[in-house]
Each structure stands twice: as structure tokens, then as C-alpha cells.
């Protein structure tokens, strides 16, 4: 705790002109002593936070930042093909490749083949211009036997070695730091001369995917609001005993494992599942024309809404609980109709809850991975699923990092908004 500051008779507070600064017991100025005490208590508070801060920085923040760096940095080419990397720095990306460049390339190919890194280099260049992978592996196999002039020798192996596009791809790959992956993440091509160019209509994937993810998140948020608002209102207005019982119906799904709920929706929605059987039995559809409710966007939205609904109900409920029922009665006694009383009095008071629940659901929905992966099929995949795909299957980590970086920026922007509107200190856990 704060060390006590002792005042003694020596501390004189006279108004005489020669009085020095107010002194503490040990003779130091009081001001300094107080500053010291404040510093000690701040250091103590900080010392308590420090272990966790260090832990979060090392095990969470730094890993994410290192992945973000991978989004702009890729040294697969420059680390394994040093000679051609060096010589291409002076190449403008437009003029014809020179004999010197070919010589450096051959040198690098021999080295990369010896070090068995040619596969990775070829994959890297192939990501810029597809079809170049085999050119590299083939040339590397024959590079050891080539003799000057190398340009003619290389063209002899494959005419495409004279293609400026291939060299452009190599130049882009050879840049350790480049915007190539961020460009790819927004469906653009990063050229050797530093310009960007949008891909053809048919090759665009990711911008559409980001928009789709945002729209799905918005749809899920609106669905949660539409379903959560009446339920929260009912829970807030019923007597405590009844509402506690009904609250269990909200809390049980909330506490149930995500995988359990996803499994349950597979059982519910599949073509011979519970829901379709009920529809057939009710005569809504026939056995031949069962609805396809799962492994598509419909299934993703139904399951995600169910999983995120408690995150909307709980903040709404805690806000509605604080609104006095007297307000509605007062409005009605002053002549408002039911609708006016709700719309002009009750609804505005619930807006903080809508903001809190809505942003929470939206943030969770935008990064959803498990449910779309299991019930989404082809059509219901979101941006997270593509990040996982590039991390685990295609091993294009830099593209995964760039996609993740864009997703992170979107989420942090919403979080910032959330903090401004609701405040992170007001976050409630139901």
C-alpha cells in the first residue's frame, strides 16, 4: 500500500518569504515524496497485470503479428534463388530478358536442385502465373548440363522461357516484401512493374466471398434480432419464477457444445432428417421433393442463427430488465396506442441492448468456421473456411495471412465501434 507520509513540526506552512518547499519526515520535498508514492503504487498495479500481459503478448499477439508479416513477406524465392533475385532488381519488368539474367537463373536452378528447394520455388512462381511449375522443375533437371549461351539453351528446353510474363512472375516472386498476396486477396494481379490490375470477372473469388460473409453475418444478426427481441421482452416482463424457468431454454443451448448443436442440426435438416420427415408427414412436401435444407447456405444460416441466438437474447434481456414497466403504462395513460407506446417509449430504451447483442453476434458470425465447414457444403463456405483451406491444404500461407489480415481489420473496426457505442467494460456474460 501507499507508504504513509509523516508530517512533523519541521513542516512549516508559514507565509514567510524564505520558506522552502514543504518537506516530508525524511527531509525530501513532499511533492517529490507523493510522486514517488504514486509511482510505486502504479508500478504495483502494473506488476500484477504484467504476467498476463506478457503471456498474451507472447502466446497470442506475436503469433498473429508474425502471421500478418507473412502476408507481405515471402522469401521462398529470394532465399533460394539469390543470383537471379539480385539481377532482377535492376530489370524494369518490360524489356526483353538478357543473357545475364538467363545465366543467373541457370546458376540458381542448379543450386536449388542440389538443395532440393526447387519444388517450393516452382510452387511460389506458379502462384503468380499458373503452368510455370513444370517449366521450373524441368529446367532444373537439365540445368547442370547447360552451356553458354544460356538464353538459347533455356529457350531450347521450353520456348516459354522467352515469355516476359514468366519473368514478370519471377520478379514479383523474388521480392521478399511485396503486396502480391494482399492483391491476390482482393482479386487483383500485382505486376512486375509495380502496378495492380483487377482479375477477369470469372477469376474473382475473394471480394465476392468477403461480401458474402458480410451479408451472411448481417442476415444472421437480423434473424437473431427478430427472434431474440420478443423472447427477451417476454423473459423481462414475466414474473421472476416463470422467467427463470424459461431462461433455462435459452441457457441450455448456450451451454451445450457447439459441435453437439451442429450435429443436432445435421440430424434435423438432412434430406431424410427429422424436419423433412415431419414435412412429408404433414403433406407439405412429398417423398420425392424433400427440401434440401443442409449442405447449402440455408443450412448455414439456420444453424448459425440457432447457435448465436443466446448471444443476442442475453444482452437484450439485461437491458430490458432495467426498463421500468411504468414507462409503458405512463405512455398508454397519456393516450398512446400500444404501437406508439412501444415504438416511441420502449424501443428507444432497448437500443443499447440491440447495439450490444447485434455487434456481438455480428463479430462472432463474421469469423465463423466450424458450422459452415460442417453444414455449409459448397455454397455455404465463408471466408474463414478459405483461410483454413490455404493454411492446411494448398499451403499458401501468405495468401491465408492476407485474407486473415483483411478479416482482422474488419473485425477490429467493428470492435472499435462496439467499444465506442457500448464500451468493453459493460460487456455482460448473461
Amino acid at each position, binding site marked *: 500500500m501507499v507508504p504513509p507520509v509523516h508530517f512533523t513540526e519541521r513542516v512549516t506552512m508559514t507565509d514567510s518569504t524564505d520558506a522552502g518547499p514543504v518537506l516530508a519526515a525524511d527531509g525530501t520535498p513532499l511533492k517529490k515524496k507523493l510522486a514517488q508514492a504514486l509511482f510505486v503504487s502504479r508500478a504495483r498495479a502494473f506488476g500484477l497485470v504484467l504476467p498476463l500481459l506478457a503471456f*498474451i503478448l507472447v502466446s497470442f499477439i506475436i503469433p498473429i503479428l508474425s502471421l500478418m508479416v507473412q502476408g507481405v513477406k515471402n522469401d521462398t524465392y529470394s532465399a533460394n534463388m539469390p543470383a537471379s533475385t539480385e539481377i532482377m532488381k535492376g530489370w524494369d519488368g518490360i524489356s526483353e530478358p538478357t543473357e545475364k539474367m538467363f545465366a543467373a537463373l541457370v546458376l540458381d536452378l542448379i543450386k536449388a536442385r542440389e538443395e532440393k528447394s526447387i519444388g517450393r520455388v516452382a510452387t511460389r512462381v506458379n502462384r503468380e502465373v499458373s503452368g510455370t511449375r513444370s517449366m521450373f522443375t524441368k529446367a532444373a533437371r537439365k540445368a547442370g548440363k547447360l552451356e553458354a549461351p544460356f538464353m538459347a539453351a533455356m529457350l531450347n528446353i521450353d520456348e516459354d522461357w522467352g515469355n516476359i510474363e514468366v519473368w514478370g512472375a519471377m520478379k514479383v516472386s523474388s521480392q521478399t516484401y511485396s503486396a502480391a498476396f494482399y492483391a491476390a486477396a482482393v482479386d487483383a494481379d500485382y505486376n512486375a512493374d509495380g502496378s495492380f490490375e483487377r482479375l477477369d470477372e470469372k477469376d474473382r473469388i475473394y471480394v465476392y466471398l468477403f461480401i458474402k460473409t458480410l451479408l451472411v453475418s448481417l442476415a444472421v444478426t437480423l434473424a437473431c434480432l427478430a427472434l431474440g427481441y420478443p423472447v427477451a421482452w417476454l423473459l423481462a416482463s414475466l414474473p421472476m419464477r416463470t422467467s427463470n424457468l424459461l431462461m433455462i431454454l435459452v441457457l441450455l443451448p448456450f451451454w451445450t457444445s457447439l459441435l*453437439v448443436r451442429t450435429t*443436432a442440426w445435421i440430424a434435423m435438416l438432412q434430406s431424410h*432428417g427429422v424436419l423433412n*420427415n415431419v414435412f412429408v408427414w404433414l403433406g407439405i412436401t412429398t417423398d420425392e421433393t424433400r427440401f434440401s435444407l443442409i449442405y447449402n447456405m440455408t443450412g448455414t444460416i439456420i444453424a448459425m442463427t*440457432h447457435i448465436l441466438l443466446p448471444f443476442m437474447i442475453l444482452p437484450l434481456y439485461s437491458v430490458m430488465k432495467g426498463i421500468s414497466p411504468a414507462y409503458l403504462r405512463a405512455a398508454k395513460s397519456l393516450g398512446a396506442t400500444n404501437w406508439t407506446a412501444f415504438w416511441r417509449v420502449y424501443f428507444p430504451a432497448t437500443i443499447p441492448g440491440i447495439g450490444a447483442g447485434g455487434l456481438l453476434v455480428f463479430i462472432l458470425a463474421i469469423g465463423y468456421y*466450424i458450422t459452415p465447414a460442417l453444414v455449409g457444403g459448397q455454397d455455404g463456405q465463408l471466408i474463414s473456411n478459405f483461410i483454413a483451406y490455404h493454411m492446411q491444404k494448398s499451403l499458401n500461407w501468405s495468401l491465408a495471412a492476407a485474407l486473415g489480415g483483411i478479416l482482422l481489420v474488419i473485425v477490429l473496426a467493428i470492435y472499435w465501434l462496439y467499444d465506442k457505442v457500448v464500451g468493453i467494460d459493460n460487456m455482460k456474460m448473461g
Partner: protein
Amino acid sequence: MSALPPYATLGQRVWYYAFRVICALIFIYLITPVLIIIPLSFNAEPYFTFTSGMMGLDPEAFSLRWYADIFHNGMADPDATEGWWADMWQNAVWIRATKNSFIIGFWATALATSFGTLAAIGLSRSEMPYKGLIMSILISPMIVPLIVTAAGMFYFYSNDFNPFIEGKQALAGSKMGIILAHAALGTPFVIITVTSTLVGFDNSLTRAAANMGAGPVRTFFKVQMPLILPGVISGGLFAFITSFDEVVAVLFLAGPEDKTIPRQMWSGIREQISPTILAVATILVIISIALLTVLELLRRRSERLRGISPG
């Protein structure tokens, strides 16, 4: 929405009941999927749907085979009499997953709760510098999309530039990596619950303890800790549930031996879909129901002790 007054008009009456019907439908939507898997898990056939026998309540159509399969799956010889228990304990995939879930959950919770409680105490002191900034950093694991977290950790823990580990794949593909990831994901819950408990904490109590000669450590354990314990426990519970339910980080960081229950369910759904996962799901739902009941009873008890009766 309180009880219908006697002078309510017809329209008000219709709306009153319509509103209740709408709410009932939403409650059905919330609870049906969770409950429907319970009867489905007793299916005698390897289907995810009610067979005609089950609809007719034919005893033949029900069986416990999928519950038996939880133990048998992965065992070297499920029919052996000798060494059955050892075999099950060692080899059954779901048993191994359960062990992994508890080991990982325990260590992640221990890390998250101890660091998180200390940090929450520091954060609720008025002298704490840069409070807003530090709070946002510490809460961030809850905000950053799981996929970005998992991918980042996988990349960091499996990369050779990482100064903290030697050699490749040192932490990715081990329980240690998952424990660190889950601890990071659990801390925001501990911080939020403990800080909110500390809002009502009377700081003169610690000053009184110090005044009576107790050191900071003694003050913490004898005075502060007993008072904030409910917050710490519920924060720890949240951290444990987070770890127990988390699968994205496990998908990225776990080796083949480190599969947890949700990870095993994931491969169950992806690879060989069988009602065994429904049986596991049923057990998990029953555990959730038990947990909720205990929490509700505890809440009622504490309300009764404080003299607030429900209703």
C-alpha cells in the same frame, strides 16, 4: 406484456396470445435440436433419423449399441474378458479424447485463472496506467476471429524463426501448444467476471488488513480472495467451458494423439458419420443440464441466504 387487464380490447387480446405463440415457437426452435438427439442416439440402426420402428415405439428399434461403441471404438479387442479395462483405458478413441479434453482444460483453466485474477486485481486499481489500452489487449482473444488466432499460432509454433522453440513442429502438434492457445482464449472471461466482482469491492478492507500488520500476500489470500472467489470460480468455469468446447485451435495445433472430444466429433461428422457421435452428444447435453441445474440451485440458495426470494 404483463398480465392482460380486464378492459383489454379484442385486438389487444389477439396480440397478447399471438405474441405468446410466437415466443413459444422461438423457444421450440431453441430447444428442439438439443433435445431431439437424445432419442435419436438410442437408434438400433446406423441412421441419423427416426426409423418407422422408433415411431411405433417398437422396443426392437431401440438399442444401446452406440453407447457401447463409445468404449469399443479403437479398442484392440472389445470382446476379450481379460484386460478389457486396460484396453479400453489405453486405446478407446473417445476415452482418450475425454482424457485429453480434461488435461488440456485443466491446465488452460489453471493458467487463465491465475494470470487473469492477478491482472483483474491490477486493472481495477485506480492507479493502473494505460488501463484502456491494456484492457483492449487482454480482451482481444475474445474478439479476434478464432480462425486467425489458430492460423497465427499454428504458423508461429511451427516456424523455425520462432526464438522460443528449437526445431520445427516443437509446439504445434503437442498438447503444450493447445494449452497455451486455450489459456489465451480463456483469459478474457476471467478478466471480465473478476473485474465485475471487484467493482463492488471495498478497498478499505485491504487497508484495514495492512493496518493490522498483514503483508500483501496474506491480505490477498485471507481478505481479498474469499470475497472475490465467486467471480474467480465463474470466470474459471467459463475458461474451462471455452477450452472444453473449442475445436478450431485443436484442428490446427493438435497432433494425432491429442484429439479432444469436439475434435473427435469433428472427424466423426467429417469421416465416418455414425450415431456414436449422437450418443456422445447426448452425454454432453445431460452434463450441460446437470451443470445448469446445479448453477440454478446455487443461485437460488445464495438468493435465499441474502433474503431475496424469487417471484
